[in-house]
């Protein structure tokens, strides 16, 4: 990994000397040599202090900017989990000390703040991130600093890092079951609508491959720029294609504009159902229940899931943040992530990154969604897929569920039709 540290330093120095005032640099060059003789492995997780009664962990969510809408909710449920754990005696007897940083909805800020949390605050693990861009930006940081990130949102798969635990769904736990469900319902043609970024593009690649293998016709594939607000043209295209169903990977505000247009144009779940993978309970209020009632979603958790753990989770969450608040899949996945980390640490009896990685395999947690288990190979979580239908109260009710938890398969290696996708 570090082929030519010393030579590198000197040559880079020479390079800058060529460009700059030589005197100032020569002085510094010497300094750099002494300071940087040994590249230290220990700048990262090595500085985690576990000697006291507390241990620091970092929460890194966008609390400002466009993504604050979604990420604030994740932050709330992380806080809930942390206070529950602390009330219950902490982790390995140490109280959790939370360091909160704001990702400001910008990937570069996520990278910067992740570095800060790891190297300056010396946290044992970081929880957060939402967009793929923010995760991609943080990944090199966690790998080079050898620290841990718990990422709580369903995503496009095709990734696996020893330093990241993915507690949301990968594609074979959300997209593929969604398609299975539609195929089961006799859907023979699909129209794909998505925002123009990595998740929808990748999801639609998978959908196309699946459709080809299963005799489903894809009648159209449309992308709208993030934040796009005028969907009349796209809805016109959807209408004239007249598919059996629409697979919707739109993100954020665009869903509101899309569904308002969709229902205003007289389309509804009866003539052309829409299966969405980015609309959770949290978003339904903003879209307006009347516009999405009866439409389908694919997730691993709904507020209505009937488990004792969920009842307790919803109750605790609403007690903390208000009875009008709803819980959603990413919030639950974030809540789980803290407990899963706790499980790993307690199994390893150590906060050390390598020990935690070692212990991760098989750690499970009786989550609100049901029991989830960490896959030690790819650091994803075995989860049950749930197809839901949006009710008139704005909550989502399970319509169909997979036969037990699905093992995560981020590269879709277990699916013949997906060959060549990654």
């Amino acid at each position: 990994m570090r082929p030519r540290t010393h030579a590198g330093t000197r040559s880079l120095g020479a390079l800058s000397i060529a460009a700059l005032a030589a005197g100032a640099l020569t002085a510094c060059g010497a300094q750099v040599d002494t300071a940087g003789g040994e590249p230290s492995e220990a700048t990262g997780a090595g500085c985690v202090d576990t000697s006291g009664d507390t241990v620091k962990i970092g929460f890194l969510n966008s609390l400002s900017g466009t993504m604050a809408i979604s990420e604030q909710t994740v932050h709330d449920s992380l806080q809930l989990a942390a206070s529950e754990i602390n009330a219950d005696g902490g982790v390995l007897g140490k109280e959790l000390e939370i360091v909160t940083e704001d990702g400001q909805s910008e990937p570069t800020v996520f990278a910067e703040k992740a570095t800060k949390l790891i190297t300056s605050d010396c946290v044992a693990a970081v929880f957060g991130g939402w967009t793929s861009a923010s995760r991609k930006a943080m990944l090199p940081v966690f790998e080079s600093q050898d620290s841990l990130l718990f990422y709580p949102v369903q995503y496009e798969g095709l990734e696996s890092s020893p330093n990241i635990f993915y507690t949301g769904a990968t594609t074979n736990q959300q997209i593929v079951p969604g398609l299975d469900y539609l195929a089961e319902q006799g859907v023979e043609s699909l129209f794909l609508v998505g925002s123009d970024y990595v998740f929808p593009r990748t999801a639609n690649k998978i959908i196309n491959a699946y459709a080809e293998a299963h005799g489903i016709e894809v009648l159209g594939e449309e992308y709208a720029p993030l934040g796009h607000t005028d969907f009349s043209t796209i809805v016109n295209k959807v209408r004239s294609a007249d598919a059996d169903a629409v697979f919707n990977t739109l993100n954020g505000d665009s869903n509101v504009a899309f569904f308002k247009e969709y229902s205003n144009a007289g389309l509804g779940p009866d003539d052309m159902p829409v299966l969405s993978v980015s609309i959770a309970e949290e978003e339904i209020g903003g879209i307006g229940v009347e516009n999405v009632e009866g439409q389908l979603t694919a997730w691993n958790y709904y507020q209505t899931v009937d488990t004792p753990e969920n009842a307790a989770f919803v109750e605790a969450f609403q007690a903390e943040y208000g009875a009008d608040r709803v819980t959603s899949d990413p919030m639950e996945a974030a809540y789980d992530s803290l407990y899963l980390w706790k499980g790993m640490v307690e199994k390893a009896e150590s906060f050390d990154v390598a020990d935690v990685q070692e212990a991760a395999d098989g750690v499970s947690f009786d989550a609100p969604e049901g029991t989830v288990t960490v896959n030690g190979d790819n650091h994803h979580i075995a989860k049950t897929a749930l197809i839901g239908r949006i009710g008139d109260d704005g909550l989502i009710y399970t319509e169909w569920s997979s036969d037990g938890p699905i093992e995560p398969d981020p590269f879709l290696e277990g699916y013949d039709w997906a060959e060549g996708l990654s």
Partner: protein
Amino acid sequence: MDILLSQLFAGLSLGSVLLLAALGLALTFGQMGVINMAHGEFMMAGAYTAFVVQGVIGSAGISLLVALPLGFVVGGLLGLLLEATLIHRMYHRPLDTLLVTWGVALVLQQVARDVFGAPNVDVTAPEWLSGAVTIGDVTLPKTRLFILTVAIVCVATLSIALKATPLGRRIRAVVQNRDLAETSGVSSRGTDRLTFFIGSGLAGIAGVALTLLGSIGPTLGTSYIVDAFLVVVAGGIGQIKGTVIAATALGLMQAFFEYSTTASVAKVLVFVVIVAFLQVRPQGLVTVRTRSLV
């Protein structure tokens, strides 16, 4: 053929949305030279007004009709406040108004986030606007027809007000020659305030109308502000006519480009067309020639 008509309507409808967003700017930027980046946030304020009104009144059918004039007043008052505190000292620095109002926009967005919460909220469309009118195979959503109507009414009212009322004559007089108007006894301070009030109020109306189409959140305005300015610039300042034509043309272009390519490409293409167009006509579509150094 049907799809052609559908797209034609989609374009006109998008044009009417852009027109609503740009009409107020045509006054404040076109007539007064103030580059108000907070115009989008005034729209947002209008949208939240609709949300609050619905919460108070409850009935969706009436609340929309109440929210429209109320949105005008809310937007207008915000504009008035902005004019009185900041803008009035900056008429000789048009470019600086852009930056100041951008700061105002940032603050207003965060205020909305702190007051109404980060998640988007929804305004229910009234019963009489749900569904669509179908002519042959062409479907025209009623909400879009309504917005088209609102836009037409706003343009008509504004042009009549500018042309036929003493108030409008005062506005035009000050715009055309501030010094002359002042020596003729027109209070330019008062007229400035009034113009800004009306321009910002129109943003409020646009915001209320937009609740029928999209989400209501703190960043509602930012999605429209760049387009709205382009409409005014392409239309040429000083005349409502240019703004109307430019908004319609932009809407149609976006709709047809989007139909034949993708939404992203269409947006880029529209920008390119406008830049190219301004090469041909740097002063926009409709210009009022003055002797001053343009």
